[in-house]
């Protein structure tokens, strides 16, 4: 690789980093504004028109803040942890295409690479929790490990369904296979699984168990402040954007839109961004609606519902492919399973009636029997 190529690659990486930072800024503003409106508030209004400069103000505040350090902290792990979380989230973007030819390095094993790297950030969270020498941080770190590892499985299996349909792990290929029918229409079950497991991977409501403010006061991030906390924050929002864009690429046809030419880069980017932001709005919408799950609810949802469903999803996809049935047959199977499971789930979740119980009063034995 000569100097020019290296320079090109570096400038591309820098471009992606800058772009992601801008996206994160926009997401923080969007989230606060959107959640505010859902609670019939205004959201930020004081900083610039419509509070648009709020993320800038936040960034300045975070940078200017004192970086406190507890004296019992394990320093090496403590300083490495933010990077261990941030670097994998950034590395994913090397192979996520935002238009047909807008990608740093297209890979045939792109999805494999993305999954392999996204698992790595768990290490960072556990590290942060352990190094902080704080009981809440340790609890949060372990919760993060338990949650993220459990939900990797349905996530990966949901991706597997798409990979089977597309016969490729190359994201560009996956998108170009969706030229006629998007995979969300063929595999609605896969989309729901991917979305729910993705929410859990992000640690967003209703799965925000590891940074739960009311239980473990911010989880692994308790001890962090200022710029180091900002790095975690940045990673979280980049992850949100990554899961949303993966949903778009795998299930919603990426940069393709019926009636628009898919090979025009600028148009492709626009379509891709619009779709991704729609998915992100759904994520914020979910955040504005649901309360947090308990940890046992989270585990039972993951292992008893999502993992079996993900296997079922893979199996019906395999059956459909083996017999070469038409697309709509998989759609029907997938939707039927979704409806049946949803119905069963809603019956289970319905609040159980309070069990009847009798209060037994203590009645002292009559003293007369003693006298005889």
């Amino acid at each position: 690789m000569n100097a020019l190529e290296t320079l090109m690659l570096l400038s591309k990486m820098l471009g992606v980093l800058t772009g992601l930072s801008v996206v994160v800024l926009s997401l923080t503003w969007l989230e606060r504004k959107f959640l505010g409106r859902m609670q019939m508030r205004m959201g930020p209004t004081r900083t610039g028109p419509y509070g648009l400069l709020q993320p800038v103000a936040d960034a300045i505040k975070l940078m200017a803040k004192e970086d406190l350090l507890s004296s019992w902290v394990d320093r090496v792990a403590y300083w490495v942890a933010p990077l261990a979380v941030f670097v994998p989230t950034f590395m994913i973007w090397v192979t996520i295409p935002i238009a047909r030819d807008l990608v740093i390095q297209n890979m045939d094993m792109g999805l494999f690479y993305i999954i392999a790297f996204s698992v790595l950030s768990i290490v960072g969270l556990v590290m942060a929790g352990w190094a902080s020498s704080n009981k809440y941080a340790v609890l949060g770190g372990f919760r993060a490990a338990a949650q993220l590892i459990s939900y990797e499985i349905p996530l990966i299996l949901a991706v597997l369904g798409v990979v089977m349909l597309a016969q490729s792990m190359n994201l560009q290929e996956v998108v170009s296979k969706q030229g006629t029918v998007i995979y969300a229409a063929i595999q609605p079950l896969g989309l729901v699984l991917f979305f729910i497991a993705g929410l859990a991977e992000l640690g967003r409501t209703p799965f925000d168990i590891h940074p739960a403010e009311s239980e473990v006061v911010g989880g692994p991030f308790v001890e962090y402040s200022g710029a180091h906390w900002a790095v975690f924050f940045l990673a979280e929002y980049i992850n949100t954007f990554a899961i949303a864009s993966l949903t778009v690429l795998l299930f919603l046809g990426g940069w393709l839109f019926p009636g628009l030419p898919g090979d025009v880069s600028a148009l492709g980017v626009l379509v891709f961004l619009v779709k991704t932001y729609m998915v992100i709005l759904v994520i914020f919408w979910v955040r504005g609606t649901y309360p947090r799950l308990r940890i046992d609810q989270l585990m039972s949802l993951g292992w008893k519902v999502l993992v079996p469903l993900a296997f079922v999803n893979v199996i019906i996809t395999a059956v459909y492919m083996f017999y070469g049935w038409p697309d709509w047959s998989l759609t029907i199977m997938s939707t039927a399973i979704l409806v049946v499971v949803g119905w069963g789930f809603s019956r289970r979740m319905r609040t159980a009636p309070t069990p009847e119980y009798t209060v037994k009063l203590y009645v002292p034995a009559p003293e007369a029997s003693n006298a005889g």
Partner: protein
Amino acid sequence: MLGNLKGLMVTLSTFFRHPVTYQYPDEHKPIEDRYMGFPVLMWDKNVEEPYCTGCMVCVRYCPTQCMTAVMKDNPLHADGKSTRRKIVDSFEINLGRCILCAICVDVCNFDAIEMSHEHELSKYARNDNRTNLPKLLEMGKAYQQESGWKPEKEAKAEADVKPVGSSVETKEETAEAES
């Protein structure tokens, strides 16, 4: 599952509702007519002097002892312009201590003190809320201007001239008479 979807619909419907926020320093909530703000002193426009004679009834009844008043001979009475023999010389209310109970208003024999609509009186120093006579009168004039306040006697006299529900009552009376 169905309940989950219902929940999503609820938040979506609130999203399309108008925010209930008042942008406070720029935009004030409307004050009700009977809002009880801080007590202020009233100004008699007929004679151009305060109603207050400095009799100290309010001072004695004040549960937090936030007022002081000093009385003097009324110079306008000596000139024959006023019926008040005594008039207030100085009056101070520590609005930081006032609890807005309106006992001073109830006990006042001259309708001289009233609960105004003043409520945004935050100050930087602890004793900046000590309010003297000119300031109290200024606030009172503003309140009179705003609410069209009249002393009790005048208000009663006006009410007797044109009773509000009179037409209805007469109708009822006639109906009773007919039956």
